[in-house]
């Protein structure tokens, strides 16, 4: 593996110059009396790494679930690539080009790494009964292409030697990488990464930083939830801080780092 060095974050092109790929306005989600997310609004530009940080229970994962269709937000709207995807089914959201990974890894355990990625390609496969029963040339070509693409994706995340291993039997860090490969298989424009470096040692974290930078270079926009401050500060173009469901602060890593409200939320206010 080459040294985990990516383009320096400060030098990245100004996000405002690019068109927004995701526009979230006033999204709220309440569970009983708990306001998990309170009218959060933000925009994500193309090729931008947008981090969402905040203390535990701040509503970061709930926000992700609202964006990816697992929860329907109570209020607000999610506009993705010009289309309103608020309250759409998860597979429709995914079809629009928004893929995600999960905080608690959710791979298809009894499928090989390759099959996991191929399952992620379902959106782009035809399900014609005639083709798959009689293995028409079109079907065979599609199946072959699908496998080749899946192998390439596994190579991207560095798993090509483990293509036939069951996902369940992969090491923890590799499972996180496989989740990313599977999400990439859906050919997204925007990737939601929910704590991709959770529980990783420093070397694995560096590899993850490198991988995320590589994904951005491929033209993906990324929203990142992460507690690992080194990772967040190193690669983010933009950081949003959530606390108790509401947006606390917003800006470049430098701005957020120096925001007294953020310091107070993380470290407590001076008495």
């Amino acid at each position: 593996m080459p040294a985990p060095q990516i383009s320096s974050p400060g030098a990245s092109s100004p996000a405002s110059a690019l068109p927004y790929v995701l526009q979230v306005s006033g999204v709220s989600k309440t569970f009983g009396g708990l306001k998990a997310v309170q009218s959060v609004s933000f925009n994500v530009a193309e090729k931008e790494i947008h981090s969402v940080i905040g203390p535990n229970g701040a509503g970061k994962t709930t926000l992700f679930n609202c964006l990816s269709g697992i929860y329907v937000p109570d209020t607000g709207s999610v506009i993705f690539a010009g289309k309103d995807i608020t309250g759409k089914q998860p597979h429709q959201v995914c079809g629009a080009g928004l893929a995600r990974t999960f905080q608690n890894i959710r791979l298809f355990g009894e499928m090989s790494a390759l099959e996991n990625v191929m399952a992620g390609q379902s959106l782009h496969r035809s399900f014609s009964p005639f083709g798959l029963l009689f293995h028409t040339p079109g079907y065979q070509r599609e199946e072959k292409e699908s496998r080749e693409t899946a192998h390439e994706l596994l190579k991207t995340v560095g798993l090509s030697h483990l293509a036939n291993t069951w996902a369940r039997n992969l090491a923890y860090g590799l499972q996180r990488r496989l989740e990313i490969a599977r999400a990439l298989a859906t050919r997204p424009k925007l990737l939601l990464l929910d704590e991709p470096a959770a529980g990783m040692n420093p070397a694995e974290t560096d590899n993850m930083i490198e991988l995320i930078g590589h994904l951005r270079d491929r033209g993906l926009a990324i929203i990142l939830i992460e507690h690992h401050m080194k990772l967040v500060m190193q690669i983010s173009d933009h950081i949003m801080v959530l606390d108790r469901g509401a947006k606390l602060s917003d800006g470049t890593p430098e701005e957020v780092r120096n925001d007294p409200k953020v310091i107070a939320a993380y470290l407590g206010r001076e008495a």
Partner: protein
Amino acid sequence: MEDAPATTPSASSPVTPAAGAGKSWIALAGPYVLGAIAFLVITFPFIWLKLNFTSTGEVFAQWNQAGGIKFWRNMGPVFCIAAVFALIIWIYDHFKIQKQVDVYWTPADKWMQKQPLAPFVLPVLLIIYGFSGQFNFLYAPSPTLLNQGILVGIYMILAMGLNIVIGYTGLLVLGYAGFVGFGAFAFAVAQKPDMIPGLPWWAALPVVFIMGGLVGWLIGLPCIRLRGDYLAIVTLGFAEGFRELCMNLQLTGTFNGIQISAASKLGDFADRPWIFAYIVVIVVLCASAIYRIYHSPVGRAWIAIREDEVAAGAMGIPVVRMKLLAFSLSAAFAAIGGLLSAAYTGYINPEVANFEKSVTVLAMVILGGLGSLPGVLAGAALLYLLPELLRDYVSMDYRLLIFGSMMIVMMLFRPQGLLGTSRHATEMKGG
């Protein structure tokens, strides 16, 4: 388990061959001895005692030696079955059959994937073979044996169908017999003299397949969003409701059922070799179709849903639609299984849709190995044939007892089922 580390080099499993040897026999056998004692104690009143009711309404228990001796004499074959199972599993594991199968299976599998018409080769060969008059040799085995072969074939179709929904997609369905009953009655009603007299069974087969699928779709539509136990109960309710409906409708002949006319039957006694051949062809066709669907994006989507529904949805798999597809496909196979059994026996009554049938097929699937096509076929053959072959020795009252004890033993020792192994991972070099 005796993994025989002495004889086999066993390069792949350095896990714990010696761990079992270190334990004392008491620690190993203790739980089973305790279980056996518990069994003896719990069953004691049912086996060795008999309740007597006097005319004055008093109840007293009486020592019932004959009953007890009869029970244990009947248990002999049960132990034999257990021994057969143990032997099969031991051979399977000891001779590393799975590995050997994999070695030969992988090239064959790749070849199968490449040949567009591969599933049709065997049926066509069988048909040619049949027309050349060579089926005469099948007259040699007794008609009873052919009868059993035919019924095993029908159960195999049912088990494969149920496997789609339980084994592949991971939805628990307890009312499978409802769909079997639907197929049987759709055919039986259609061939009545005042409907379509002389309807041949082979013409009805594709129609009933599609109708079964549609009914599965309609039943699934409202309840597929339910999970686990709830879906099981809803389907169970459907099966029971269907049975009651058939019991009370004039159209379905109430509890008398419907006689299948000679023209619509699979054939009579003398045609059994032919019927057997038809069934073999249909089983092979069904197995090939299911095999191909399983090894396609559809099959991958089903397994993905079984493994993690939320993640499957987030990866762009239309969860509800794929579940409905599995549900209706399994109902379609159930329906043709029902049609074939009606057309074979020549008579149908609402009891085809009873709960015991659902449980029998479920037991075949679980015992054979959830999600494993060969396993399910073996399960169907074994569970149907064992009680049949033991018919002379065991009273059928003990059939459910055999089921129950086999299930318990299997779940304890081999939860993945008889031939249920690791799923065969997609093999692919380069890319």
